[in-house]
């Protein structure tokens, strides 16, 4: 009986030893991690770029990004005030962003798709910083080239504007 007990005890010891060796004292830490989710940046058009009412003679009409308009020669018809394109930007307060504006836009006669004019575009600034309320704005002006005997009518077109965080 003593022999049996001794054998059993030894066997138990042998089994126990490797188990302890494979699971030594463990030290753990709850390590910190963080991430900031920001308000996505968004741009929308508040006011469309409008070159006004123009006489059909060869020349250029310029609408500054500040909205001031000039033409050469004098071809702007009073009554319709040219306006620069105005864009509202919303996003994370305090973050800087840049904008990308198409280099030009083609305006097409709304009743004759073969009659077109082209304007080069330029933004008021290449970007900005969103306010403490997460808003900002910029404008887009352009230079419209009018051909001699440009077909009368209403012309329209679209151009792309995008914004991205810096």
């Amino acid at each position: 009986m003593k022999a049996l007990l001794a054998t059993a005890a030894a066997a138990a010891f042998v089994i126990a030893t490797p188990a302890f060796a494979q699971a030594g004292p463990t030290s753990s830490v709850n390590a910190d991690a963080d991430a900031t989710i920001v308000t996505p940046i968004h741009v929308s058009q508040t006011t469309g770029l409008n070159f006004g009412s123009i006489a059909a003679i060869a020349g250029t009409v310029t609408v500054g990004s500040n909205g001031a308009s000039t033409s050469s020669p004098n071809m702007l018809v009073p009554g319709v005030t040219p306006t620069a394109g105005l864009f509202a930007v919303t996003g994370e307060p305090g973050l800087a962003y840049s904008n990308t504006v198409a280099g030009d836009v083609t305006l097409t006669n709304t009743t004759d798709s073969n009659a077109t004019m082209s304007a080069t575009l330029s933004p008021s600034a290449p970007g900005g910083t969103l306010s403490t309320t997460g808003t900002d704005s910029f404008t887009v002006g352009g230079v419209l080239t009018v051909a001699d005997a440009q077909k009368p009518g209403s012309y329209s077109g679209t151009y792309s504007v995008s914004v991205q965080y810096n």
Partner: protein
Amino acid sequence: MRLILAATAAMLVLPSAVFAQAGPSSSATADASATVVQPLQVDCDTMHFGQLAPLSSPTYVIMPAQGSPLEDPYDIVVPGTRDFATPGNCHVTGEPGLSYHVSFADSATLSHGNDTMTLSAFTISQEVDGQPYDRLLSSTGSNGFGVGAKLNVGANQPPGLYTGTYLVSVQYN
């Protein structure tokens, strides 16, 4: 038969008497030893993901265990903060020359109020021997490793600073 029994009884009594009367004895000095080693301790710097602009569909970024740049397949990292992303650099101290094993929890949660994001797929920076989870303490009893993970960003994830913890464990091999 009686004689045999008597002799047996005498033999049984005799050893007891010898010990009781402090007869010849033998003694030896026995050895006992123990080695106390420095306990393992681990501490980790905060894993920073920087600023992320979510999309209308689920996205993710992956922090490499070696550090920047973040893997950003959906282009959601605010570019100006890309260089500020840092892995969870962990520092281990213990007995010089001993090896240890590193393990992570399967996932962790970062939260902002009731909104949450899941951190998963933890990775560890490589060591020269190619066994990154079994590492060796230096002759001064120190070692370190970087921790990376995948941060799952939900569709239209609400803005805010999300914080949380992830479990890092080390033990001697």
